[in-house]
């Protein structure tokens, strides 16, 4: 038994050493710890507090200046083992008013999603395709809203510099799993571990999306991006997002994230 275990360990080490850039990558990263930076970013960006409540307004602006509004309440609760639950209630526009949306998010697995349509009193489970799916038609994808697995990209620190008035790490992430980008370069504020800017490149190496954190505020001890923009560099379409009435650790009950509350939206939380 012990011998077999030892063989497995040896085989694993050999395989890892033989991988392109295996040990070299670790050595190159050791001083800055790219994976550690990204893990901290994910914690600061997508998971602060035990739970969160926010009123989110997304303005979709076309290159010609045509505007659409998506106004929603977002509730998030952190589960165990990296699981998260999101509950979304739509206030505007009128054709989606009263719709609710539930996302159960798991590490390294597709989300489970449900949508409730009030006019039909109908709950529908939705087939989810995570990586590149636009969130409510905006320039943000689901992954921009709720995060992406650390292991889905290969992360490398490309240096440090001042960006948008902050001392930042520059972290490059190369997609290893399905993604809408092939490469992402992010400027991470060393003080808050939040990205202040991100540039997304497609398979041809061309810039196609730009993310900027336009306002960062401290809410309940958590630095929070309260204004952000995602711009499609190719079409000129952009989405501006404002997080208002943000509150952490407000005690959102686990049962809110269920079919019952999809059908009977929890008035206490969405007012």
């Amino acid at each position: 038994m012990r011998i077999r275990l030892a063989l497995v360990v040896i085989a694993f080490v050999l395989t890892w050493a033989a991988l392109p850039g295996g040990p070299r990558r670790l050595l190159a990263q050791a001083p800055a710890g790219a994976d550690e930076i990204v893990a901290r970013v994910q914690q600061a960006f997508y998971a602060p507090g035990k739970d969160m409540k926010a009123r989110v307004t997304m303005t979709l602006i076309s290159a010609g200046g045509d505007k659409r509004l998506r106004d929603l309440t977002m509730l998030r609760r952190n589960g165990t083992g990296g699981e998260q639950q999101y509950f979304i209630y739509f206030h505007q526009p009128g054709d989606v008013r009263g719709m609710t949306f539930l996302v159960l998010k798991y590490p390294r697995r597709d989300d489970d999603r449900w949508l409730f349509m009030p006019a039909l009193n109908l709950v529908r489970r939705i087939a989810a395709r995570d990586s590149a799916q636009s969130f409510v038609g905006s320039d943000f994808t689901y992954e921009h809203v709720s995060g992406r697995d650390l292991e889905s990209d290969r992360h490398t620190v490309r240096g440090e510099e001042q960006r948008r008035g902050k001392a930042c790490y520059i972290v490059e992430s190369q997609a290893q799993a399905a993604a809408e980008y092939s490469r992402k370069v992010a400027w991470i504020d060393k003080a808050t571990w939040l990205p202040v800017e991100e540039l997304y490149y497609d398979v041809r190496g061309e810039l196609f999306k730009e993310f900027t954190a336009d306002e960062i505020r401290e809410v309940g001890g958590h630095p929070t991006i309260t204004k952000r923009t995602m711009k499609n560099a190719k079409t000129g379409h952009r989405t501006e997002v404002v997080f208002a009435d943000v509150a952490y650790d407000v005690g959102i009950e686990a049962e809110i994230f269920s079919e019952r509350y999809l059908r009977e939206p929890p008035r206490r939380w969405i007012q």
Partner: protein
Amino acid sequence: MHGFAQFNSAFRATGAECPPEMACDVMRGEERVQLKLELSSPDGRAGALARVDLFHDAVGDDRGIDLREAYVDVGGRRISARLGRQVVTWGLGDLLFINDVFPKDWAAFLTGAPLEYLKFGSDAAKVGAYAGSLGAEAVITPVFAPDRAPAPDRLFFFDPMPAVTDRVRDRPGADFDNMQLAGRIYARLGRYEVASYVSKGFFGMPAGRPDRVVPTRLVFSYPRLQTYGGSVQGPLRAGVFSLEAGYYDSRDDPAGGNPAVENSQARWLAAYQFQPQEDLTLAFQYYGEVMRQYDAYQRTLPSGLPARDQVRQVTSLRVTQLRRHQTLRLNLFVMASPTDRDAYVNPSVRYNVTDELWLEAGANVFWGQERHTFFGQFEQNSGVFLVARYEF
């Protein structure tokens, strides 16, 4: 206070020759205003909602007020109740209903109204009890409301005895004995959802009973029905599968020998949906129903009436494509029955011109080899519809 103003029209495109009392080429020409009022107590434990439609239809100069929903919510953490007129929907089918026995407006659906008008409110009390991901709900409807069936003022449908024009309706009375009950218990087990359903009530569509062998009068009544069923839904590869089954227990004709009453049936549904690419969804359904006591049905079927098959099967495909930041929705729904040899095709395009205004244009196309099958009977109602809605 919210709501919408809507224009909705539908046109028959078959060039059918209609009887004089039928709205022929124009099936709907309707203006409608919906007002929605929602109230909530400061602590969120109680609330109320009212949705009222005011409408006028140029076809038949039809006008009126339709109280779509009006209910009061009382909520606790473990138990909640919704009292009043409310739309209830459960089950997993897309336009195929097994355990959803709540009232449906087939006439609105067939004359090009938006899909939400397929369902209408039940005057009911819904009581729910919940613990974690487990839920149990009971819907009590004291007074029976039948489905709104296609009527000869606007629609062609199969009528086995067109010569008998003297027709009366015999609805279940408002007795405690006729109270309808429906219940559902459901749970989420990991990533799977299971549910079981039961109901006691009446068939939503009436059964016509002739008064004698050479009939002079048809009495339409609503036979008793009990249903039992279950469903399961969960992830499968990159998509979602659904399975649902149910048994329709025809209480007024357990032996199946009464030709005016539907025989008992078993129904089942298997469905799968997935997204092959962003904003494109494909959904497949396979549905079947099998009649019990088919021998008794065949034996007692009056001569001259077309016989149904023992098994009816239906397959469907829905393709939904979203474009232009999800403001443009292209939809194609195809439903076909290899056993009935009939089909229903519904293409539609919807565009949100602004956040307030959306336009939808589409078609309802029915086809059948015979005039008595489920979709085939509606062949001459094939046509196009248009909806323009301004939300406020």
